[in-house]
């Protein structure tokens, strides 16, 4: 096997330096939390016409009963997420039959575990690759606020510095039942959202390339 002259030669060091520069850029710019999407709270008071309400209900009913999660299992909480998907605390009865590995086929991102600055570009990229509508569930205290490791030099103080979070499930690690409760709350949130949301509210693009 010969390497044809003229083809770009892969240099491991240059790739590492480029990735390191991206991590440093995120560390400097993204240390403030993104505000949580709270538009669903106002929508309850808006009056809508009857046709749209029924359409809303039907669409959101379909959406919330078949959210497919992309598992972003980072650390210990990942194993409670796996326990949730296993046979005892079966989550597929709530429509999350499979934990998709590909973000292109998912609409919910479960961030389980401690997020470090080195991993943050990957998290943002996976979030950007998910198609709308998408929701994020931060599981465990490390994802909510950095947890036990908050003072560490390498840990992001909460996943909401990188992506907007819809539901927070505290615990270290939260029991599978607690995570299921968080999922139920997310379902309620989805049910109370309207289809018109996606036409009028700008996408949250802070930090995206």
């Amino acid at each position, binding site marked *: 096997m010969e390497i044809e002259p003229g083809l770009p030669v892969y240099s491991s060091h240059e790739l590492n330096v480029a990735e390191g520069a991206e991590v440093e850029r995120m560390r400097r710019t993204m240390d403030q939390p993104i505000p949580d999407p709270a538009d669903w709270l106002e929508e309850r008071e808006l009056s809508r016409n009857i046709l749209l309400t029924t359409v809303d209900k039907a669409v959101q009913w379909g959406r919330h009963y078949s959210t497919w999660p992309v598992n972003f*299992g980072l650390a210990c909480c990942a194993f409670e997420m796996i*326990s949730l998907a296993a*046979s005892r605390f079966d989550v597929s009865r709530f429509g999350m039959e499979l934990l998709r590995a590909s973000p292109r086929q998912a609409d919910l991102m479960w961030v389980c575990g401690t997020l*470090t600055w080195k991993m943050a570009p990957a998290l943002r990229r996976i979030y950007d690759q998910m198609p709308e509508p998408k929701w994020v569930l931060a599981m465990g205290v490390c994802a909510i606020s950095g947890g036990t490791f908050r003072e560490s*030099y*390498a840990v992001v103080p909460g996943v909401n510095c990188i992506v907007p979070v819809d539901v927070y499930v505290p615990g270290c690690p939260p029991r599978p039942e607690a995570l299921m409760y968080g999922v139920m709350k997310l379902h309620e949130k989805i049910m109370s959202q309207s289809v018109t949301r996606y036409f009028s509210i700008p996408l949250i693009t802070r930090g995206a390339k």
Partner: protein
Amino acid sequence: MTELRTEPFVLNMGPHHPSTHGVFRMRVTFDGEVVVDVEPMFGYLHRGIEKLAEGRTYTQNIPLTDRLDYLASMTNNWGYVLAAEKLAGIPVPERAEYLRVIVGELMRIASHAMAIGFLLNELGAFFTPFMYMYREREKILDLFEMLCGQRLTYNYMRIGGVSHDAPPEFWPAVKRFVREMPSYIDEYERLLTTNEILLARTKGVGILPRDLAINSSASGPFLRASGVDWDLRRKDPYSIYDRFKFDVPVGTAGDVYDRYWCRMQEMRQSCRILEQALKQIPRGEVRTPVPHLLRPPVGEVYGHIEAPRGELGFYLVSDNSIAPYRFHVRPSTLINITTLRQMSLGWKLADLIAIFGSIDVVLGEIDR
């Protein structure tokens, strides 16, 4: 016929991937489908535990150690408190030693069950063996919840013993589990050990020769599968392991199949140790009174135990203050990965996944 000219292709098996070992990344160079080079990259879960530990007291560090190898938290705790007790010269009551052995061996069974389940997941038996193993693991996690209230990160051991005694309903539940577990292991062996797909995918794949295994400081079932009889419970008995009769399974070929086989047999031996411990456990207190802010004398210690994944060591340096001066974890899985490249050269992509699965890594321990 003209020669087929191929070009190398670099694939990034990125930190986010369906294999559940954690955020591990490999840059693999392929020639077609044959692996030409593997560069493992990690640090995606580096939380700076060693630095954080320098700012916490000795007892506050115990929950930090839980989060290292989070699939075997009991043994992490044990390694750390063993090192701290050696440093400060604190004796441990008999009942606490027996409780430690009981939870340690239960943890070993749960951890090996997960390891085998995930290995088979990666070989393509999509979740079925994993669900079977999970059934046993859930029973063990229920026992631990009865004992200390937590399912995953226990924080059960303390310097000088364990944090509290087992409730009365614990003992019949453990005895029932130990009675039933060998029959479950027989069930797994019947389904898996002579399974032709498993044999075809794992026999002779990813061989680690004996000399390379010793030279690269491998440990645990990974080392024993290559034919090296080195188990710290036998060679350097800590706690009360010299009182129990058990065998140490040693493989011959050092391939993926032998690592699977070693783990399966170790589950059986753990059941044996549990039976003996349950018969011998005395009454008594479970904790030596230790000052709240422990100040060990100036010195250093390297305390190591046989964790399910290998030799987990803790190097503690003390300068007579309430926090350790240096807290270093000798991670078993980081050192086992040293030979990943040598083991997988010349194999195909699917074999690379199987080889990596057989090393049984947990990223929390690699990155700390």
